């Protein structure tokens, strides 16, 4: 069951075109029948900072990056120096600078590791074609694609799609492709051996980022208003939603700040549409007062919190899972909320209708966690099954005859079962009410009595119990298998891994390794973080020889939450807080140590 994988990394300065090359090649691989996982690194600078675009490909599902690659494509010397040691034995380094001299050590290393270095005369070829430097990207892509034994027609098709709107450039692009293939032939540089066999099922898959997946999920969920403010790594979501606005008909507001964005999202949901906002940690801090408001007025509301390493500005373009405890505990006062976390392009899409459904059913704010790794990760994704989506709006009343019957005091009726009272929308021909941020009586009038305060607090908090009941238990996976295991609460496991969010991909990839597949290893993956279901965890952890938590934060925040909710025995942790996700071999080796 060893996963066969190959990888390619393009390195250089941000703005040098590494994204173009990466995107073209990633698409080319996918269309040729590979599952692709893309991972970008870059600094918080517009240009000049070191950046990379890595593509890992496999014939089977792959959702992680290796730390070393088969091919390193260097767009500048700094990139070469920086990533020199990330090339596998027998790998290839490509570059386009005729004048590079390599140090003795480097040459020795190349020799020892059997690494080939190939120069591409990009500048000369471009000069010959009278093409601008930007076309170097296509030349590079074309050479690499040819070296991988790729189909020239496919590449032309892809590049054609990209430049469909710039007809004048199209011809030059095609000539670059020809030149790239020609030069590859000349050099005889071949890479195909590193590739597993293609599987045509991937051809029709989507190739998209987690942000695009989430953006489509938002549109799909019937969300009609997006109010946001740019902040990495939530900005790509804003950009995507904005880009497709003329197709979707959504109203988009780039607000003056995050407080505004949150208030607008809340105002839109209050009025009865579905509205969303997204931000990262610092912006979320600013939204936290509004979160508390939504808790009080029992307003369905959806916040996307895209994590990056903090505190403060931290590492704006890197990844982390450091905001879980905050999402659960931030905002003054005590109120019901739901916190869920996306893991990959699949649930980044499907969680969105769910987030709105839960928000409306429980009349409560919902926080959807994601992180930079998901937001900018590039996934090969099966076409989304749109048939399974249902819109659930809970106790929302829309029928005229029912509206006639409601009383103002139904809106915040504290005797409501599960704490969820009737809801109807402004404009409805019905008794009116007050959505009141002060503690209030059932119709929303201020009521400061002790009696009422207790009733209303308990009404609102009862929703937590109801929600906990309604939410699914965490998913269980068993090593060697890629899909979820149902039931089987009382498996005796050699090792129980507990994790959440974007770690899912790499953990599942690693668990396909034979050394793990032959043991009984369980992976309990949390998607619904608050209220926290603990039953399955308690049952499994009792019977597991070891339990290890894998998180991209310092405090082991999920572990902290589980302790708070159910107490746990001594657990091990595998934590990472350097802004990078867990990489494939890194995790594999770390987990090896925990194998019994």
């Amino acid at each position, binding site marked *: 069951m060893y996963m066969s994988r190959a990888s390619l990394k393009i390195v250089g300065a941000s703005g040098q075109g590494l994204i173009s090359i990466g995107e073209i090649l990633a698409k080319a691989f996918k269309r040729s029948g590979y599952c692709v996982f893309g991972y970008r690194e870059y600094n918080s600078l517009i240009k000049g900072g070191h950046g990379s675009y890595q593509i890992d490909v496999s014939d089977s599902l792959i959702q992680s990056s290796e730390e070393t690659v088969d091919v390193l494509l260097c767009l500048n010397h700094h990139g070469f120096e920086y990533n020199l040691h990330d090339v596998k034995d027998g790998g290839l380094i490509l570059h386009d600078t005729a004048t590079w001299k390599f140090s003795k050590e480097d040459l020795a290393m190349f020799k020892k590791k059997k690494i080939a270095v190939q120069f591409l005369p990009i500048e000369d070829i471009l000069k010959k074609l009278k093409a601008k430097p930007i076309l170097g990207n296509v030349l590079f892509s074309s050479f690499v694609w040819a070296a991988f034994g790729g189909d020239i027609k496919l590449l032309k098709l892809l590049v054609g799609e990209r430049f469909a709107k710039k007809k004048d450039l199209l011809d030059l692009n095609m000539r670059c492709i020809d030149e790239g293939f020609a030069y590859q032939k000349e050099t005889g540089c071949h890479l195909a051996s590193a590739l597993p066999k293609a599987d045509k099922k991937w051809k*029709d*898959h*989507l*190739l998209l980022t987690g942000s*695009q997946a989430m953006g*489509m999920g938002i*549109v*799909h*969920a*019937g969300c*009609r*208003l997006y109010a946001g403010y740019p902040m990495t790594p939530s900005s790509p979501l804003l950009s995507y939603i904005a880009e497709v*606005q*003329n*197709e*979707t*008909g*959504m*109203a*988009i*507001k780039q*607000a*003056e*700040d995050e*407080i*505004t964005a949150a*208030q*607008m*999202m*809340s*105002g*839109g949901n*209050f*009025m*009865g*549409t579905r*509205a969303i906002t997204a931000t990262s940690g610092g912006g979320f801090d600013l939204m936290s007062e509004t979160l508390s*408001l939504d808790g009080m*007025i029992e307003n369905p509301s959806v916040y996307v919190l895209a994590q990056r390493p903090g505190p403060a500005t931290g590492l704006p373009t890197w990844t982390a899972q450091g905001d879980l405890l905050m999402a659960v505990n931030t905002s003054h006062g005590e109120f019901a909320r739901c916190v869920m976390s996306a893991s990959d392009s699949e649930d980044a899409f499907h969680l969105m*209708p769910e987030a709105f459904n839960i928000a409306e059913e429980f009349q409560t704010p919902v926080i959807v966690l994601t992180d930079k790794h998901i937001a900018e990760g590039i996934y090969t*994704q099966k076409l*989304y099954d*749109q048939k399974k*989506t249902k819109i659930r*709006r809970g106790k929302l009343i829309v029928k005229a005859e029912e509206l006639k019957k409601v009383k103002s005091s139904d809106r915040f009726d504290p005797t409501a079962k599960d704490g969820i009272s009737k809801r109807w*929308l*402004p*404009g409805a021909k*019905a*008794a*009116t*009410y*007050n959505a*009141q*941020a*002060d503690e*209030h009586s059932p119709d*929303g*009038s*201020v009521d400061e009595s002790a009696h009422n305060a207790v009733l209303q607090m308990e009404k609102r908090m009862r929703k937590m119990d109801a929600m906990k009941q309604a939410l699914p238990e965490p998913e269980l996976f068993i090593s060697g298998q890629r899909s979820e295991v149902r039931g089987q609460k009382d498996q005796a496991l050699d090792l129980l891994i507990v994790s959440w969010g974007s770690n899912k991909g790499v953990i599942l990839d690693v668990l396909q390794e034979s050394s793990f597949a032959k043991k009984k290893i369980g992976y309990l993956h949390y998607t619904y973080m608050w209220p926290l279901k603990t039953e399955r965890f308690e049952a499994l952890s009792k019977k597991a020889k070891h339990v290890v938590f894998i998180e991209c934060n310092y405090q082991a925040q999920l572990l902290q939450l589980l302790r708070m909710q159910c107490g746990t025995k001594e657990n091990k942790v595998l934590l990472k807080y350097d802004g990078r996700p867990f990489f494939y071999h890194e995790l594999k080796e770390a987990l090896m140590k925990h194998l019994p």
Partner: protein
Amino acid sequence: MSIPLDTKTAALMKEYHSENKCTWCDGCGDYGIWTATKRALSELNIAPHEVLLCYDIGCHGNTSDKLMGYRFHGLHGRVLPFAAAAKLSNMKLPVMAFGGDGASFSEGVGHLVHAIRSNYPIVFVLHNNGNYGLTTGQASSLTWQGKKMNASPNGIPEHTLPSMDFVFSLEPTFVARGFTGDIPQMVEILKAAISHRGFAFVDMLQACPTYNYFATHDYLLERCTHVQNHDTSDFKKARELAVDTSQKIATGILYQNEDVPNFYERLIPRQDKKTTLVDEVKVQDVSHLMQQFV
């Protein structure tokens, strides 16, 4: 000052009646705005279920449970964006936002600035009592310099914010000024504001006998003068009238421009939509979007 109401208006006025007793101090200008609001809505034949009234926090915010209508009583300084988005979501419903001078020129001044430049199609009524009433009389940005206030025993060290010049610098499309001692005028202003195409900024000079001992009811009564023969389309003249309060304080509708499209009208994706955002909540097919990623 009492004008006979026609029966329809009278009937609607009754529908706006709430059983909750008012809790403002005697002589508070909030009584007047409260009455004028109900009256303006009734005269425009808008029933309580046909309007959304959004309140900020403060003494004025305590209006929220003293009348009927769909109401929202939100956070300090934040009423504008909430109200704006509510309106954009259902363009069929008139939406009014009410806020204090503390809320609007301190905590929430950014929202005011951007609401004006966004020209949201809502009414904003400023309860301008020159102080933080509900938190017991601290200075706001509009408190006069040199006046001793709670927490400012030496008077404020900042300049008083020149609110009207400030608002005009943002190219508003509707500016009016009322005085809480003149309910009929407030009713006229509010009716025009509710009917305005874009963002209607209504500055209500509000007596606060408990904490505002400088711009008192009597002070305002003496100075406020209804503009006469004023061309409300003359931006420059309107601005001068609004800014210069050294002798008289011009009240009434000072400026209005109906030619500027409001925010919703400027949204290209909404250009020819007949439905509201509220109407459109349903599963949306994203096949065409997926196609872009194959």
